[in-house]
């Protein structure tokens, strides 16, 4: 019984997100609007955690299987991108390492100094340097 109402809440947020995506001229996916809407509803107390918890946990735990079709669709395009494959793999690996270092270092610096304004200044310097070097 709780599942029906919980599913209703999550599908309701998804539907509202879809409406936002259709009405607002921003390139933001419906799922992100829905996420923000549901988070806001939780924060303001419109929706209680126990009214969504079980179904949400189930959906997140099973998330991987919702990607089966999109990932298999790779077979339909891979032939067109054989020439770009090496570049794509290199870009994925380099940028992933870069983002990890920049994010980790910047947050660590800010927390060490615990003065937000100084942190912002030094962090901009870091990201600029790192990004420039890898280009």
């Amino acid at each position, binding site marked *: 019984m709780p599942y029906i109402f919980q599913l209703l809440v*999550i599908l309701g947020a998804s539907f509202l*997100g879809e409406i936002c995506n259709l009405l607002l001229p*921003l*390139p*933001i*996916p419906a*799922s*992100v609007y*829905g*996420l*923000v*809407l*549901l*988070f806001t509803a*939780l*924060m303001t107390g419109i929706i209680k*955690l126990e009214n969504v918890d079980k*179904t*949400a946990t189930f*959906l*997140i735990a099973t998330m991987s*299987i*919702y*990607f*089966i079709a*999109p*990932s*298999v*669709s*790779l077979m339909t*395009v891979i032939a067109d*991108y054989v020439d*770009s494959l*090496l*570049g*794509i*793999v290199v*870009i*994925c690996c*380099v*940028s*992933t*390492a870069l*983002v*990890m*270092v*920049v*994010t*980790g270092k*910047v*947050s660590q610096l800010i*927390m060490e100094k615990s003065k*937000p304004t100084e*942190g*912002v200044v030094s*962090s901009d310097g870091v*990201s600029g340097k*790192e*990004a420039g070097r890898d*280009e």
Partner: protein
Amino acid sequence: MNEFLMDSSYFGLFFGLFAFWISTKISKALKSNLANPLLINTVIVILCLLVLDIDYETFNQGASHLTYFLTPATVALAIPMYKQVELLKKNMTAILVSILCGIAANALCIFGLCLAFGLSPEVYHSLLPKSVTTAIALGVSAEIGGVSSLTVASVVVTGLFGNAIARIVCRIFKITNPVAIGLGCGNAAHAIGTVAALEIGEVEGAMSGLAMVIAGVLTAVLVPLAAGWM
């Protein structure tokens, strides 16, 4: 075979789920960070479809029913974010600034390397959202004109690579603060990176999950700006 299955609504659904179940078993047996079930599943399903000469459309007729749940599942990410709201409030500045820097570095790096490799704008648009969780990346990719399957592939490669290098990167660059480690993992390698963060520690895992959601939302808002560069 293809003609026989063309009208089936459950073939793709059953076969996709069955292959995924097998993939999780293989993944567990291999005990490696690189043996991601989604990756194994993709290889198995594509090989089977090619060998049996079945079209993707035939498979997708059933499998697409699973894809419908992608949006609600992404919406559900609001729940873990809400559960960690105290951690979020306490480190607000560090979290937001570092994630924004990461997103900027990511966009600049992808733009520069795409130019260096001479890749098409289409590939650039497919790669831009690759650091966030697949559901959001797919949505962003569709909005800015990327190729969805290329986006999924790059998201998975990103996650696997980030998962594999997390410990080494943190050691080399002396990232020792648990919150910082978590943010780095989650912002760089979304859910698969979060698995690595969880293995390092509880705070790391929680922060990584949080970073994944915030980075996803911020990427959805900001990446379309970078899409105009090419």
